[in-house]
């Protein structure tokens, strides 16, 4: 009994820690204009490269220090979270809707539908993803919309492949056949019998994809292909911090930590939610 309880406790702790960080970061992102201590864009060269609060030479009010132009790092991170989360949710949900639907259809119907969709996926995945994203943005033009579209267009294949494989397994189950015999149509069976069983995987993948979208957005802003350079993004801050790493390491380290924690939390949250939603694992 104790053993079972411990097994059940573990994912919960993971779920709470990951969920806690995401909730915190999400709240910061939503409330950025009100909680950020400073304007993220205001430069003040007199306050350039101030260290974080626990190091000598810090100024009160600049908790995590400032960058080489004297902009408050904490405020920039909080505003950066706004963009990160916007991209994470919009891109991941779009990729999920497209990929899961096609995967479900391919896996469940098989035959021609599967052959066509699988070939498209194969072709799609043979493009190097980041290069593909850069090309797409070169065509679409920079901006938040382009980033979201680029990530969705590239990453729907992740959902498609996994959900296809799971739907294929489900399609062979006796309860799917029973549903046919009972008179349910193909599409209805797919939605009623197969979808609930692949839903835990979809949720896990969705959460994972949010983390991936944040990374891709950071990469794109690192190479200056994301939103306008003025807007603070985590990737953009990292790119700037790289230039002054010897004078002001904090400008590089804090956005990296924020990025790392958020991506890790999304993947852990995905796993935890999968176990939570799966009646057999629960």
């Amino acid at each position, binding site marked *: 009994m104790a053993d079972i309880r411990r097994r059940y406790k573990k994912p919960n702790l993971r779920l709470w820690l990951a969920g806690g960080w995401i909730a915190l970061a999400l709240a910061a992102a939503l409330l950025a204009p009100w909680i950020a201590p400073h304007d993220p864009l205001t430069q003040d060269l007199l306050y350039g490269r101030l260290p974080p609060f626990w190091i000598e030479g810090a100024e009160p009010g600049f908790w995590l220090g400032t960058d080489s132009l004297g902009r408050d790092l904490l405020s920039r991170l909080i505003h950066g979270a706004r963009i990160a989360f916007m991209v994470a949710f919009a891109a991941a949900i779009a990729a999920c809707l497209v990929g899961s639907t096609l995967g479900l259809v391919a896996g469940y119907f098989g035959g021609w539908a599967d052959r066509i969709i699988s070939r498209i996926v194969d072709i799609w995945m043979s493009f190097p993803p980041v290069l593909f994203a850069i090309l797409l943005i070169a065509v679409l033009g920079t901006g938040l919309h382009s980033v979201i579209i680029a990530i969705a267009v590239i990453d729907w294949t992740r959902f498609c492949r996994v959900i296809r494989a799971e739907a294929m397994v489900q399609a062979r189950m*006796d309860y799917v056949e029973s549903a046919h*015999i*009972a008179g349910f149509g193909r599409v209805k069976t797919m939605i009623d019998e197969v979808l609930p069983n692949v839903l835990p995987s979809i949720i896990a993948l969705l959460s994972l994809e949010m983390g991936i979208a944040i990374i891709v957005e950071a990469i794109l802003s690192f190479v200056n292909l994301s939103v306008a350079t003025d807007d603070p993004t985590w990737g953009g801050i990292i790119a700037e911090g790289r230039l002054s790493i010897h004078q002001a390491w904090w400008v590089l380290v804090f956005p990296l930590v924020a990025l790392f924690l958020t991506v890790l939390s999304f993947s852990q949250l995905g796993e935890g939610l999968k176990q939570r939603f799966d009646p057999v694992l629960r």
Partner: protein
Amino acid sequence: MTDCLAITNLSATLPDGQRLLRSVNVNVAPGEVRALVGESGAGKSMLSKAVLGVLPVSVKIVEGDIWLQGNDLGRLTAAKRRQAVAASIALIPQDPLTALNPSRRIGPQMTDRLVKILGWDQTRADERVRTLLDEVHIRDGERVLRAYPHELSGGMRQRVLIAAAFAAEPKLIIADEPTTALDVTVQKQILRLIAEMQRLHGTAILFVTHDLGVVAKISQNVTILYGGMVVEEGAVDQLFANPQHPYTRALLAATPRYTDPEASLLPVDQSVLSDLAKAVETADRDWMSSHGG
């Protein structure tokens, strides 16, 4: 046609032309329990799949008819056919562990068909399902209806599936080796339960099995298949007392008896099998020549 189910001269082939069902005739009268016996690969599952309209895509019916309640299924459109099957046949599946959807509660799984296909209202369907759970001797029906399949034992799940099969008062139930996946101790209970439910509802059952011991307990008539061919058929007591075909005799000799555990199990004699193989070959040759192939 007064038969509940009449399969006449049914042949089904694989793409390479090999026949899986070789001109099979099986009739099930209303209220009759007919066993369909054969070893694995004899075509008994193929036959039930053909009736239910869930044959694998590669298997094609090339000849013969399936009459359900006097309707020739082959002449119906796919949608009409599905309706006809759904309205009058139910299935008790082989493996209760995979026949229920693991992520849905038992209640909706049982009422879904009544409500969405047969157009009952939800309250009536709920009532009906509760009555049926009572009939299959599930005492805490309310808990079972709210449970997920993995929270129930194998025997319990099979009871649920039996209740679900009888719920819409089908004319025919196809029981596809319903006891094979269960514990020996549970097997007996389930068999008794199916027999009891059958008497209560008067439903015809096509009972697919490889176990002659089971046949004796539950059915009135039996059809023995080998290699997709009907080897022998008749009333159970007659066929058991006086089997005509050597294969039937061999099968009977190979059935273990609880009363005489010392008796050695006899494998089916090689000469019987080679005779059967020859018979299958001859049948195929005749069939080929008469079909210009």
